């Protein structure tokens, strides 16, 4: 299983891998916002956490469609389906590798973008923490979407459409926890705990659904 994790990591940093593209997309999306809403620093610092979350959400959808499609195209998926190792575990490990390659760099890049958004240190820290806790959930939900769309030739867009509505709870609690950290009356911990619960919940549901979809998609 460690070998699968390492192989997927290697693939994502080798030529044509998606690791760099994700962060670049994140940077670009967030950088575009001030052009749209105007360079008012107070406004930017107020909407900063929300913008970072939307950027991270969109960026972590990138490349999700290739999660199983690439394996299917070269026949590796067939072999993975045949092994004694439960498919659920294989899917979970692939999700972890995908998150480490694309989600973790987003979390690491988020403080820099927080500075661009003129966010306070506490807001930056809180957003980074919520992203760290919340982005795995997006990948895990995305795995189910990617597995459903694995046989479609142009599944990329469809995966985004399927996954985004399911990721809305993650967005809600991620953003509200980030705001709770800077606005006094609202407590920070409860929404963060709910976010963590969502991630753990999808860590079970996502791979199970994906494994089911992959088995039935095999032809």
């Amino acid at each position, binding site marked *: 299983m*460690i*070998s699968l994790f390492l192989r997927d990591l290697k693939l994502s940093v*080798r*030529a044509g891998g998606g690791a760099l593209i994700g962060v670049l997309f994140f940077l670009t999306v967030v950088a575009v916002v001030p052009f749209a809403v105007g360079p008012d620093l107070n406004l930017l610092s107020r909407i900063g956490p929300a913008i970072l979350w939307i950027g991270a959400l969109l960026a972590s959808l990138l490349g999700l469609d290739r999660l199983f499609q690439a394996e299917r195209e070269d*026949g590796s998926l067939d072999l993975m*389906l045949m092994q*004694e190792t439960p498919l659920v575990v294989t899917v979970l490990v692939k999700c972890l590798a995908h998150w480490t390659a694309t989600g973790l760099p987003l979390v690491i890049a988020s403080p820099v973008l927080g500075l661009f958004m003129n966010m306070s240190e506490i807001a930056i820290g809180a957003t980074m923490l919520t992203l760290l806790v919340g982005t795995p959930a997006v990948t895990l939900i995305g795995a189910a979407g990617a597995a459903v769309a694995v046989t479609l030739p142009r599944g990329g867009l469809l995966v985004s459409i399927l996954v985004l509505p399911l990721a809305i709870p993650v967005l809600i609690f991620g953003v509200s926890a980030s705001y709770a950290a800077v606005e006094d009356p609202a407590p920070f911990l409860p929404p963060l705990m709910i976010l963590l619960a969502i991630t753990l919940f999808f860590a079970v549901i996502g791979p199970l659904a994906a494994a089911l979809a992959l088995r039935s998609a095999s*032809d």
Partner: protein
Amino acid sequence: MPIRLVVEGLSAQRGEDLIFHDISFVLSAGQAVVVTGPNGSGKSTLLRVLAGLLETLSGTVRLEGAPAEIGHPRELCHYLGHRNAMKRELTVTENLAFWKSFMGDSANGHGVGIEAAVEAVGLAGISHLPFGYLSAGQQRRMAMAKLLVAYRPIWLLDEPTAALDASADRLFAGLTTQHLAAGGIVVAATHQPLGVEAMELRMTGFASVGEELI
């Protein structure tokens, strides 16, 4: 007890079409069967059903005398399909090392080392290159090296020698013979003669016209 692959009354469909109907055969350790027949007669479908990648419509695939408790016969099978299941971006060694560690060995056998496997397919010395640099024939041979690095008693081979020249054909026949001599089982779908002692299963291309084992 040596293993036996027992196939009884197997039927399968793809979509709504019945591909084949009522196929039965028994293979004991050391035996091979070559599945022949025209295009579209269901050779690949049969192999994918045996590999557990397609649902059976009726009938069973059973493994008798399996050395350990297994969930499904596919867990003791190698499947070499049309596609090589190797990543172009990774080197040959990285590819083979991944499959060796991911698949592991079945009971009662050991896969050979990566260098030994690469040498067995006659391509020693280029295992450090990215898989994508290799020619189609070389890629196919490296995919065969995958059969050697992780031990499985049963090999399911779909057109194994398609992109290969005559010398690679002979080399592959040698590997198959070795596997059979060690008590393995081989099911191969092919147009070309495989060059090993084998029974022949002729698929007629239409269901129910009695597939027969010659």
